[in-house]
């Protein structure tokens, strides 16, 4: 559905995105995560067809997306700060979108407005940040897009609204096979709904994988021995991180669960525990492996 092929984008001399390569299937929810300033928003704007790539190509359904109204009719982009025309009310914005999106559903719009209890005659800029975001979602979903691009979409929404919005997104994915590209700092948020994850760091895509695969490929191992630690065995594992807490070793190990278990159990540990990692932990350790480690800063 969405193919980003070796795309680079340079601002002055700063290369915000370098040879990024991602591929998003139809009906998939793709989560883009990255460190601050990693190039998430730039990549998202490239996919949304707002920036033109300096190198490489981006296609949606086989067609180049930049300045392509045919492609853009099928997609909706909610930026990190939702944008509305100055002094417009929700009603006026709805009329505007209805005139440019052929798939606009008035019925849907009315249902959503009623459900979110929005006063459509009030100017949007007078609403709070959270409300503006809800209005952006109502308008986006009313256009019934095939591709929905969301930059930090759930920021500033309360728990009830977040759940409501997620549920609406899931409905569109399961019923119409809508494709979603979503970026977020809140990894917990992405963990429930995404099926694919891309990690971007300093403009480069480090990892692109199915979320379940990502999770089954990396484990937290806690192990303790009565006598000496069989270091030669531990060395054979692909360890991302080790920590010693008293006599208990805590390692982050890449690889297949069965293989790791077998190898470690053969060394007769007194304690052995193998846990999956949360997306947040995967992010931290993968970034640590790429020179972006957590430093606990001591302040006076």
């Amino acid at each position, binding site marked *: 559905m969405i193919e980003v092929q070796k795309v680079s984008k340079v601002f002055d001399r700063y290369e915000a995105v370098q040879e990024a390569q991602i591929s998003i299937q139809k009906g998939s929810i793709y989560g883009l995560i990255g460190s601050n300033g990693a190039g998430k928003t730039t990549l998202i704007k490239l996919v949304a067809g707002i920036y033109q790539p300096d190198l490489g190509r981006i296609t949606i359904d086989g067609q180049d997306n930049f300045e392509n109204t045919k492609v853009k009719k099928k997609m909706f982009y909610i930026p990190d700060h939702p944008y509305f025309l100055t002094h417009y009310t929700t009603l006026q914005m709805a009329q505007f979108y209805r005139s440019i999106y052929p798939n606009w559903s008035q019925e849907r719009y009315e249902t959503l407005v009623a459900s979110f209890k929005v006063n459509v005659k009030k100017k949007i800029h007078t609403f709070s940040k959270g409300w503006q975001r809800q209005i952006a979602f109502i308008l986006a979903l009313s256009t019934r897009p095939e591709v929905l691009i969301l930059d930090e979409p759930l920021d500033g929404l309360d728990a009830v609204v977040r759940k409501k919005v997620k549920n609406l997104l*899931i409905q569109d994915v399961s019923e119409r096979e809508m494709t979603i590209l979503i970026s977020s700092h809140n990894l917990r948020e992405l963990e429930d709904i995404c099926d694919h994850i891309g990690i971007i760091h300093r403009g480069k895509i480090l990892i692109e994988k199915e979320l379940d695969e990502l999770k089954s490929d990396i484990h937290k191992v806690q192990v303790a021995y009565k006598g000496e630690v069989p270091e030669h065995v531990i060395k054979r594992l692909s360890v991302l991180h080790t920590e010693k807490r008293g006599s208990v070793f805590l390692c982050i190990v890449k690889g297949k669960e069965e293989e790791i278990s077998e190898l470690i159990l053969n060394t007769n540990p007194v304690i052995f525990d193998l*846990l999956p990692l949360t997306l947040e932990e995967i992010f931290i350790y993968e970034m640590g492996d790429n020179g972006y480690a957590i430093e606990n800063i001591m302040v006076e």
Partner: protein
Amino acid sequence: MFELDTRSRKPIYEQLVEKLKELIMNEVLKPDEQLPSVRMLAQQLTINPNTIQKAYRELENQGFIYSQKGKGSFVNPSEESKDSEKITAVKGELDKLILEALYLGITVEELIQLVKDKDASKRGGAKGD
């Protein structure tokens, strides 16, 4: 129908497979009963429909459910997969208990004797029926 723990470390897909297996083994979902559609379940649980699809595929591979084109997924009435699942579970439990017994100083001979006794009484019971 059931809840998933989105705070758990376990991938949602694995949780789904386990939950559904549990429901099938305990016959909450009866043989030949239709499973909820992917769409419905996705919406109920607010989780990605692709994840549910994947879980259903896995259950089908393991022989717990079968699918009919255009109709949906149904619980497989065959006991084979259920039994093998139970055997794996029991073996796992035994593993732990045996290890504990050995740590506590129960000898291998004693354990073997225990197993033999149980086997004999089971056979005796069977004869008596």
